[in-house]
């Protein structure tokens, strides 16, 4: 790569963006993710809220029960139908939407906890730092997902006892799922942020700001955290697929998303029940599996692309 005059004058962010768009897989992943988001957002409007109506040739309501269970893919049902005659394509779209929401919200929960914990530990330093990081070390070595499982399985009873109305119980369980998955995924974020803050707080621009009379909160929020944004974004994009994976495991075990709602994990679980020596309803397994793998691939490609683009080493080597 020849360094010409204009390239040198570009800001590091601009150079990072250019590197990102030159990465073929990352671009492919971004396009796939945008298409996927458009599909899951537009689909409910196309399908309408009426469970009985069939508004389009192959667009159906995810909960609409049809007359032909286990219809092969093709015709009105592009991906076939399931045991209740529901259209698999629309169920996959609904499941992908839930998986993406869980991934995004869980990642944000982990971001908030992780950044707060890491920033406070790194900025304060000393005994507070070592105590807070010791907590992270301990939590790292604990079977925290087991506590999520115990929490989710016992929550229903707690909510009933507290007299929560039955309309709200599924919603609160849904929120508990987000919070639980985020709460077990913040540890790496805290470690990364703490390391960054630790090295940034002794830099000269921080000293300068302090000499000018800035308070701790101002220094942390205005000067230090913006400088860690790159690595936080990279790690955030890699947390989303990790949480989607956790959610699909829980749903596979019957602990996550409850029927009639579908997530990709519960669809795969339903599909794998239909694999037996007598008849193989392959579409019930293959299509949800492809949707999950495709979503995870797109997110990982984007995360990898961002990491390579924002890597300061890459900035030194080429424009």
């Amino acid at each position, binding site marked *: 790569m020849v360094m010409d005059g204009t390239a040198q004058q570009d800001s590091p962010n601009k150079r990072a963006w250019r590197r990102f768009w030159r990465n073929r897989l990352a671009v492919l992943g971004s396009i796939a993710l945008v298409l996927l988001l458009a599909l899951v957002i537009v689909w409910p409007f196309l399908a309408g809220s009426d469970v009985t109506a069939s508004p389009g040739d192959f667009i159906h309501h995810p909960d609409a029960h049809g007359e032909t269970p286990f219809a092969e893919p093709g015709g009105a049902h592009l991906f076939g139908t399931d045991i209740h005659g529901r259209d698999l394509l629309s169920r996959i779209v609904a499941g992908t939407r839930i998986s993406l929401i869980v991934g995004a919200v869980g990642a944000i929960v982990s971001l908030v906890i992780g950044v707060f914990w890491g920033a406070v530990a790194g900025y304060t330093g000393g005994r507070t730092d070592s105590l807070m990081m010791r907590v992270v070390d301990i939590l790292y070595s604990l079977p925290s997902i087991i506590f999520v499982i115990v929490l989710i399985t016992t929550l229903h009873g707690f909510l009933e006892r507290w007299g929560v109305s039955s309309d709200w119980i599924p919603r609160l369980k849904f929120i508990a799922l987000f919070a639980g998955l985020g709460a077990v995924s913040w540890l790496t974020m805290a470690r990364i942020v703490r390391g960054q803050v630790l090295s940034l707080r002794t830099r000269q621009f921080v000293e300068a700001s302090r000499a000018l009379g800035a308070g701790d909160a101002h220094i942390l929020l205005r000067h230090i955290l913006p400088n860690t944004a790159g690595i936080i974004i990279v790690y955030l994009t890699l947390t989303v697929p990790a949480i989607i994976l956790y959610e699909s495991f829980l749903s596979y075990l019957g602990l996550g998303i409850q029927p009639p709602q579908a997530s990709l994990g519960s669809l795969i679980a339903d599909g794998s029940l239909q694999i037996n020596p007598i008849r193989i309803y392959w579409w019930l397994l293959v299509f949800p*599996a492809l949707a999950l793998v495709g979503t995870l691939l797109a997110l990982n490609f984007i995360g990898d692309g961002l990491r390579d683009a924002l890597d300061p080493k890459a900035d030194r080597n080429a424009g």
Partner: protein
Amino acid sequence: MYFFRRTLFLIPLLLVISMVAFTLVRMAPGGPFDKERAPASPEIERNLKAKYHLDKPLPVQYAIWLGGVLRGDFGPSLKYRSHNVTDIIASGLPITLVLGGLAFAFALGVGIPLGFITAVKKGHWEDHVGGTLAILGICIPALVVGPILVMFFGVRWKLFPVALIGTPMHLVLPTVTLGLFFAGRVARLMREGMLGVLDAEFITAARSKGVPERDILLRHAFRTAVLPVVSYGGPLLADLMIGSFVVEQLFRIPGIGVFLVSSSLNRDYTMLVSLVLLYAVVLLVANLLVDFAYGLLDPRVKLA
């Protein structure tokens, strides 16, 4: 000395973990006898509760359970009342450990060489093929690999048995199912570690002294490059454990992972708290070993 202190610290930690699990499951409404077939008369239920100490205050219940554990008796299972928890653990734990150990070995055995080769041949076709395999590995979770392997190798081509444990052949599909994701993770960590090391000055120094390339890669670079993989060992084991719940359920393997999910749903608190404690011990000890290995491998770390 450092490791002695760390080991001592495990004791209060395990107490807290078991207490939290116990409190959560005992505070939750619903008891272990809710799903019994015959609706028991109040008297029978009272007797049942008295027999298993459920009528006593919570701290007393916890103390009774803990006292049993210290004597090596995890108490009776409240769901499978003809068995006690110790028997169930004794029959299930070895199976779960063998499966987890095989998957761990598979992940390292496939992941480390793959990551090593892709780093050394960076930019060549080996890197592209290996990198694609590694990212496919981390994007194809056990719950996808398992059913698909069963569909082709078990049901359609009938090459491998698909359920239960009997012969070593029974372990092939579960091991691959469980290990594939982690092989991908390990390969990516190994590649990154290796690329970072190959830029380091001590490698350049070794090259300029005329050390053969083979020795540089295997002796000098590998030892440092493998450190990210070692420090991933702890989280890897924790994730392996979640994967094993799915794999045990999918392949109908009589390990202890299945019991963890079901005992939580059934409020079978003796079983649940015992299993949580067991998993915690396994993970904490594994993490201790990981840190120990790290100290041995990394010359910069002195823990003694």
